[in-house]
Every structure is written in C-alpha cells, then in structure tokens.
C-alpha cells in the first residue's frame, strides 16, 4: 500500500483527502486530520476487516490527527484502538501524558477523551480498532494506559507486536468465518496486554495462594539447615519470581525472610531443650541451623522468644546438670548475652 512519501515541510498544510477522513471516522472515531503534504500524493488507506476488528495501515508524510471535545460531543466513540508505530517517530498526547512513539512501540488510544497524534516525519503506522465492549474489564481502566508508549521484547507486548504485524499481512486473505474467530483471538491478546500493564495478572488468585503457600512453608522446613536458603532459592525452586513469592506471603502476616529466621530459631530452641547425655553448646546448635554469628543468633532468638538462648535453655531445664567442660566458656558467653 502506497509509497513512503518524502517529508515535504515546505508544502502547505491541508485537510486530508475524504478517503482518509472516512477511514478514521468509521474505524476509530471522527477526528481532524491534517497532512503536510499535497493531497494528490496521498494514496488511499489500506483497510482490512476481521470480524469486528478493523486494521488500518497508514503510510504518509508528516500529519497531525486530533480528536477534540467537539468531536467527542458529536459521537462518543464506541471503539478503542491500539496504534503500532512501524516507521518514523510520533508524539501521542492523551490524558495529560505525552508519549514519544518510536518504531516497534505501541500505545492504547481511547476516543472517549481528546487526544492528538503528531507524526513529525514520513511514517508508517498500523491501527487496530475493536469495539469497546469486547475488551471487557480493561476498557474501564484505559485512562491508566493511554499516552504511554509500550515497548520491549519482553512481556506480552513482545509477543503481541509480531502477532499484530503478521495479522495485518494475512487479514486480507482469510475467509470471513476465520476472520470472525481471529477477531476474538486478537481481542483476547490485546486484553491480556492491558491486564498485564495494569498489573492485574500479578495478583495471586486465592486458589494458587492456598496451594503454593503450604508448599513453600514445607520447602522451607525441609531446607532449614541449608545456609543458602533464601527467598531467591525458594522462588527458583518453585518456578516463580521473588516478587511473586513476596506477594504470596503478603497475606501471611510475615515475610519469607522472617519466616526462615523464625523457623530456624524455633528448631534451635527445640534442640536446646532436649535432655541428652551430651547436650551441645548453644553456639554448636546455632551453627548447625545456619547461624554463624553468635551475636546475630542471640538477637534473633530474643526476637522470637523474648530472651537470649542460654536463659531460655536454663528456664526450660532448671534441674539439668550441664556438662562441665563447656561451663567456663558458657560463663563467658553469658556475659556477652
């Protein structure tokens, strides 16, 4: 469709040809379109439809597209658009934000509120429009997504952009029935991007929480002695991210780090109260459970039980005769505690 037009900044501004206006009007919403090139050089827009989805491939010289409050008053706009910049740079302004659009970046456009799209140079842009109600829940939160260029090769956008580009190539070649299905597939993909950007997907659902939290706790218990046990290790073992792990525990009244610490202290306490013929020293027990610094262990222990380890041990086993050889060092440590 069309050739790339040269930037004719010397040319005059003129209202875009009827075909272009109509294309935008029907596919997205009534807008004012101004092109800084002579109308005779502007080729017709390439429009394809897939079910209720419309794809508009725009290739032109410097242009400005604006939707004003007057446009909105005349027709509110039942469709929503995703604009994918393919060449040239643009500036899109909506909802008080301005986004510079580079090739390979996309932006959500909501015609319910005013916006301007300023293509500074010759450009190519793919616009995908869909009925607002097909988007479902994200449609009510678009004001959080507008005016922001979405880029990158990671996340849903890294999957969606190549998909949209391929879609625009095959759209004219599929049957209407296939088009109907692809329209639905594409809307779901766009809604998924919206949900990801809105942070919706990061909320662990209750069912997952109910399953994963006990498993994480169990994993912690089984690996307490491992000095490398950390949120990073736990997350990796469960194929989740550290951030997700922390979110899981938000409802648990503790953090993963604190939980590990507390469980270790508890296990130490259990060992310290065992009545054995040769009870190990506090420092031995502590080291066994991953505490290398006596001061750190003492602090942690106090945090859980309200008193230092030795005091706790004595309180639990007042009659027990602790082995002799340890005592002089114990006395020294007691001073530290």
């Amino acid at each position, binding site marked *: 469709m069309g050739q790339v037009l040269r930037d004719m900044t010397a040319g005059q501004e003129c209202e875009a040809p009827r075909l272009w206006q109509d294309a935008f009007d029907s596919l997205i919403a009534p807008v004012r379109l101004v092109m800084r090139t002579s109308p005779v050089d502007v080729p017709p827009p390439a429009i394809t*439809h897939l*079910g*209720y989805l419309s794809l508009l491939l725009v290739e032109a010289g410097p242009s400005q597209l604006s939707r004003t409050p007057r446009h909105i008053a005349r027709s509110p706009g*039942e469709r929503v658009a995703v604009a994918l910049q393919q060449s040239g740079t643009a500036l899109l302004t909506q909802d008080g934000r301005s986004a510079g659009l580079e090739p390979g970046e996309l932006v959500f456009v909501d015609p319910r509120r005013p916006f301007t799209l300023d293509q500074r140079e010759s450009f190519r842009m793919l616009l995908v429009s869909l*009925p607002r*109600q*097909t988007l*479902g829940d994200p449609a009510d939160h678009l004001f959080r997504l507008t005016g922001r260029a979405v880029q990158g*090769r*990671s*996340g*849903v956008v*890294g*999957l969606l952009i*190549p*998909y949209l580009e*391929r*879609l625009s190539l*095959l759209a004219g*070649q*599929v*049957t*209407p*029935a*296939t088009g*109907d*299905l*692809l*329209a*639905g*597939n594409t*809307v*779901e*993909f766009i*809604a*998924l991007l919206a*949900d*990801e950007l809105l942070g*919706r*997907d*990061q*909320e*662990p*659902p209750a*069912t*997952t929480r109910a*399953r*994963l939290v006990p*498993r994480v706790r169990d*994993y912690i218990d*089984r690996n307490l002695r491992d000095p490398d046990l950390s949120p990073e290790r736990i997350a*990796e*073992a*469960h*194929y*989740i*991210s550290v*951030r*997700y792990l922390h979110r899981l525990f938000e409802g648990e009244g503790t953090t993963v780090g604190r939980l590990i610490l507390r469980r270790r202290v508890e296990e130490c306490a259990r060992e310290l109260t065992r009545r054995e013929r040769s009870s190990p020293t506090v420092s031995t027990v502590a080291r066994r459970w991953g505490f290398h610094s006596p001061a750190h262990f003492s602090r942690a222990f106090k945090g859980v039980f309200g008193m230092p380890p030795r005091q706790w041990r004595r309180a639990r086993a007042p009659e027990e005769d602790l082995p002799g050889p340890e005592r002089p060092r114990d006395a020294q440590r007691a001073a530290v505690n």
Partner: protein
Amino acid sequence: MPSPAPSRHEAGPHLSARPVVHPVDPGRPPYVRISVVPGDEPTRALTLPMRPADDPDAREIMVCGPLRGGLSCAHEGRVTSGGLVLADSARPVTVSGTAGSALAVLRVPRPLVPYPDDVLVRTTGRAYDATTGVASLLLPLLLSLATAEGPWGAEAGRDGLTTRLMNQAADLLTSLVAEEAERNACPGASGLSDADRRAVDEIRRWVNSRLPDPRLRPDAIAEAHHISVRRLYKLFTGENGTLSRWIQQRRLEECRRELGRGGGTAKVQAVAQRWGFATAAHFSRCFRARYGMSPSEWRDHRTEHDTAEATPPPDTLQETGRAAHLCAPSAHW
C-alpha cells in the same frame, strides 16, 4: 539414554532455559500444556501422541513446531511437510524435524476443541504451511512459550499470565482447525456476485460490531443497509445457513470468549443475561449443544492452575515420570 525429567541443564542450543512442563494434578480438569522434545538425534522421528492412546481421557489435539527448520509428517501412508503439524492423539503420526532441532508441542485436551470428529479427521495428521494463515500466527507464539523464559521475561510462574498465554495458543489451534475445515468444506466460491459478496461482508461487519444489541433483528439490519428483508435473506442463504442462526452462533462464540478469559470471576448468569438469553438454563442448553460442556465447565477449564513444583509430592511423581517419558525419545529408535 533419555534423562528422567527436563531440567535447565538439559537445554539444547536453541532453548534458553528449562522447558515448561506442568505436572498433571489429578483433582483438576485437564488443561493446555506445552512440552519440548529435545533434538539431539540426527534422524529424530517423534511419534505423536506422546501418551498411550488407550487412555481415553488423554485424548489431545496437538500442534508440533520445530524450533528451527521444517517438519515432515507421515500419517496413514501420506507424507506432508511444512512449518507445523496438527495431530489428533487418537490417530498417531510420525513427525521428523530438521536434524537436531528441538520440537515444541502444544497439547490441548480434545474437549476444548469444539469440532466433531469428522472435522478432526479431515484437518489433522498433516503438516501445514506456517508462512500464511492462522498457522503463521500460532507457530511463533508456540515457539516463544516453549522456550521457558520467553520474551515475557524470567518471571515464569506468574500463573495468570502463563495460563492465559497457553489459552491464547489453544484458541489459535482451534482457529487453525476451523480455517482448514472451512477450506475443505467449501473449496469454491459461493454463487454470489462480487457486489453481493461485498454487501454480505459489509452487513456481517455491521452485525459483528453490534452483537450484544437486543435490537439486532432482520428488519433492523435490513433497514440499516437500505435493503428489503427479502433481499437480506437472499444474501444470507447458502452454506452459511440463515442470518438468525449465524447471529446466534456468533453470540455463543462471544459468550465462550468472555467466559474463556478465566479468572473464575465471570458469572454464567451475568453472561447469559447480557447476551439476551431468556434464562441461564436456556443459555447453558444452547452452550452445551454447541460446545459439548456447560458454560461453567468451560470457564473452569480456562482458569489458572498451578505452576510446576521443584519437589512434587509422591502422588504426582508417577505422573511426572510419565510426563518425562513423554518428553524423551521413544524407545524403539
């Protein structure tokens, strides 16, 4: 010898991280999975299905794609080649890829593909050209999802996101089957003139954009297009059936799409009401007649499930063992 379970150290040259294999949870309905078969044999031939065909519950529709190069597919004496293979676990195929390439396999439980067996017979057991049509959309997505870290970043295990992406792949598989079924069913153009064809396309688009509208009746549609109801009916007779039936089918498809977004929050009652069904019971009947399951069953199939575990509890070890076998070369070669 095949190693017991996929691990990150097994990744071949074109896999960036551990393959994503979700163990089966016996208590939940079967769901969409992606497995990766490492490509270490120069003359690798993979037999699909990768699970015993005598397990009726395990029937799956699969798409197999090579991480690089092409594929050929042998089925009932016929060999086809292309960019991806569509297969039905009830009718095994042998797939050979470019030497050394790992294969990504998308596995969708049969009940989630809403087409009858005769359609599946016509469309599965062969390779497809992945440079055009729905195949050209599905293959890149499958390959991205199969390389576990994928472009969506190292945060594998963000349940909702992963599940929805898997569902996205399953939906494209369904569209691929539909596309091919239609191609088989009506190879020639209909009897409509070009002008009539354009009129039909325009009306379809108009109706498609207004599906939830209860005023969408033949007289209103005809009026909006400045034609008589009789002409409208004439335009819509033929292989597509009547206009009203088509509208009903499109509405059901949209209901299925809405419920299929998962998350467990969509209420069947609310969907039925919004789409103009007299009662939820009536909606469920229509849905079940078309899709072979109730709306809530469908919704539950599409909802988040758990991520893989590092140390699965004993009752799933067997399953994991079997799953591992599925990803390993089969013994006979």
